[in-house]
């Protein structure tokens, strides 16, 4: 049944599928871990139990999402070897140590303190518990830093030489880690994670405001989320613009594909808003375009010349259709988020933030916007890196493991079935948890004792004593 595909294509589909599922969870848990740390910090500082209640509510959701992130992440750490063995052999000496540092500095930190954060409030007391929460949040950020250094090195490799075995060999670690695209990509991704979480929290708050179940908690989280949206969305658009300029400098072919510039424009390139890339005729059909705007954005000059894909040999061009569309989807999400942020500021100014039903309805609708934007953005940058794995130095076709097509095909099918089943169930459970924000004044209907700490003042000891001493 796989005759139509070659093993490389199936391996690529498998990697794209597993990494796309995986990135959903960190994109949420990076932001949520920080949000939890803020909530617990506010609880300790202001001694207002609404923050502890929100902390306990989101903590349970975090546990489910984090668990999914862990198990889908273990797959990633082995898939380089199983399916991209040549890439692993050649690039391992450079990117392997960075991933090693990710495990040593981040994964152990998260895992070590996660147990204390989830189960240990009664055992260690509020201050040490806050430290554990902060460590988990810090760990997610360190993890993002290392793995984005790895990805950025694959996009804009630096600080290496090649030995006689064909391996990339580190020459200057500083240059490897702080490769040209790393700072931009890191900022762009961390902000994306924060925005993603803000819109999930915002949607959850808006849902409960519409249903009027737990007004105080819903108002608090909705307000916090909308502050994030209003502040971070414009910063993110600026960061994205800077990232784009960086890409133009180091990976011009990717930007050409994003812009749909099949042809060079010697005196000012148009910005194509929408259109249908036509691979055969090398042009964008039905294009709606604004003359010279692309040159203005990318070169800060209306008449600046911009080279097109006609300057790149066809076998070295990224697939234009995918990159063109995914980039526009990301932009649409980004500007919609900015719109919500500004709208919320206006409502806040008018005093209708918690009463404007339309704002709440749209905010519920925008709940998944961050995930869509993150996936679209990653598709843009990863597909835009093609046909290379290590940009300019190692072709994707030369990176793959010598594994027969049926073996890869079978594993791909297994991953698809298991991921939809397992992560589908997980998403369902998360949505159900979000829908069950306990009412403000009633005792929480948890299944176990520790969660009842959410409705009693202070670090409650529900069984009237210390545990485990």
């Amino acid at each position, binding site marked *: 049944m796989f005759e139509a595909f070659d093993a490389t294509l199936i391996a690529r589909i498998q990697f794209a599928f597993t990494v796309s599922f995986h990135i959903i969870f960190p994109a949420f848990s990076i932001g949520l871990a920080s949000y939890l740390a803020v909530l617990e910090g506010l609880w300790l500082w202001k001694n207002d139990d609404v923050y502890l209640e929100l902390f306990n509510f989101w903590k349970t959701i975090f546990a489910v999402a984090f668990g999914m992130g862990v198990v889908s992440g273990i797959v990633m750490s082995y898939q380089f070897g199983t399916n991209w063995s040549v890439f692993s052999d050649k690039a391992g000496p450079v990117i392997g140590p960075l991933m090693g540092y990710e495990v040593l500095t981040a994964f152990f930190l998260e895992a070590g303190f996660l*147990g204390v954060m*989830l189960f240990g409030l009664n055992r260690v007391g509020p201050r040490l518990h806050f430290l554990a929460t902060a460590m988990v949040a810090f760990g997610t950020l360190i993890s993002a830093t290392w793995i984005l250094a790895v990805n950025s090195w694959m996009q804009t490799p630096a600080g290496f030489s090649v030995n006689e075995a064909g*391996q990339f060999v580190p020459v200057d670690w500083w240059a490897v880690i702080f490769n040209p695209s790393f700072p931009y990509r890191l900022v762009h991704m961390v902000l994306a994670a924060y925005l993603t979480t803000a819109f999930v929290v915002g949607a959850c708050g808006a849902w409960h405001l519409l249903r009027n179940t737990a007004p105080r908690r819903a108002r608090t989280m909705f307000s916090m989320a909308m502050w994030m949206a209003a502040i971070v969305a414009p910063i993110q658009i600026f960061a994205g613009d800077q990232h784009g300029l960086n890409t133009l400098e180091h990976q011009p072919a990717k930007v050409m594909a994003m812009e749909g510039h099949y042809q060079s424009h010697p005196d000012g390139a148009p910005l194509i808003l929408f259109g249908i890339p036509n691979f055969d005729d090398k042009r964008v059909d039905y294009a709606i375009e604004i003359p010279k705007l692309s040159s203005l954005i990318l070169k800060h000059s209306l008449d600046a010349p911009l080279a097109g894909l006609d300057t790149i040999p066809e076998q070295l061009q990224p697939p234009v259709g995918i990159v063109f569309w995914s980039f526009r989807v990301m932009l649409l999400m980004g500007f919609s988020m900015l719109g919500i942020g500004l709208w919320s500021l206006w409502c806040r100014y008018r005093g209708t933030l918690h009463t404007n039903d339309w704002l709440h309805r749209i905010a519920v609708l925008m709940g998944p916007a961050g995930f869509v934007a993150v996936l679209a953005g990653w598709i843009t940058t990863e597909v835009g890196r093609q046909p290379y794995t290590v940009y300019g130095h190692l072709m994707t076709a030369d990176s793959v493991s010598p594994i027969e097509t049926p073996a890869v095909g079978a594993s791909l099918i297994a991953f698809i079935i298991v991921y939809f089943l397992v992560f589908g169930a997980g998403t369902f459970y998360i949505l159900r948890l979000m829908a069950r924000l306990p009412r403000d004044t009633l005792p929480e209907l948890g299944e176990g004792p520790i969660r009842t700490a959410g409705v009693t003042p202070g670090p409650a000891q529900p069984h009237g004593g210390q545990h485990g001493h």
Partner: protein
Amino acid sequence: MDIDLPLIWAGLIAFSVLAYVVLDGFDLGVGILFPLFPEKHDRDVMMNSVAPVWDGNETWLVLGGGGLMAVFPLAYATVLPALYAPIIAMLLGLIFRGVAFEYRWRTRRGEFLWNWAFAGGSTLAAFAQGLALGALVQGIPVEDRAYVGGWWDWLTPFSIVTGLAIVVGYALLGATWLIMKTRGALADSARTIALRCSFATIAAMGIVSLWTPFLEPVYLERWFGWPTAIFSVIVPLLVLGCLYLLLNGIRDRHDTQPFIAALGLFVLGYIGIGISFYPYIVPPSLTIWDAAAPDGSLAFLLVGAVILVPIILAYTAYAYWVFRGKVDPEEGYH
């Protein structure tokens, strides 16, 4: 440079894999034993006994994978394709049992599903790890920096035996862990199971040990040639010592002694494999030095490992300390 970086790293990777085997061994073992405890209450306690630490335990597996890619990229790039099917099976098993820790508490109607996912996933992951171990011991052919064997090479009578051996061994670790962490009827059942698993584990270790030397001439020479044959006497004696402590500990209703003795068995088995392998990392094709990354990579990560591994061990120990003692059946955030 006088320091033999590849050798140091071989030791560190071996340590990290050992840490993984003994730590995730007991929490996978708890999953393997799930079907033997049909009561929901027992299962809740069993799961809560490992819930705060399983994630940290599995991080050693990520360190094993990520670390291998960093310091022995050629081993990573040849072993994983050679063991493609068992590795994928292990990953899928770990997915099912990993999510079960949270999912199981999120539904009443579907709880039985996640009980099965926890038990089945744990067993599958353990069996796949044993298969992978057996296939690695049997040897992996490498030419021109690539695996050149077939796609079913990992499946042999020997690897099936090692697969079963790991399942039984993890079950022993899990049972002795439960003896240490639980009370009453649950702990009593765990004692009965631990006793049976002890004999099964020793039998499996014996079969694998007697079989291994005849797989590769190198192993035969190692175990029956002078002076390494000394180990052929010492290691089995130590194994018997551990077995004695294990059985006595179970009989005398010690809380921790059975678990420690079971860990000892695993460490000894692991040392035995290490003695057989040295100096190969992918027997019989690649030595530690063949597969090592350039010194620049080894040195860079070693600096971090030397500083960070002790810190990691310290806060991991702290996390275990926070949850020390018997599991309180009423506790758990769920």
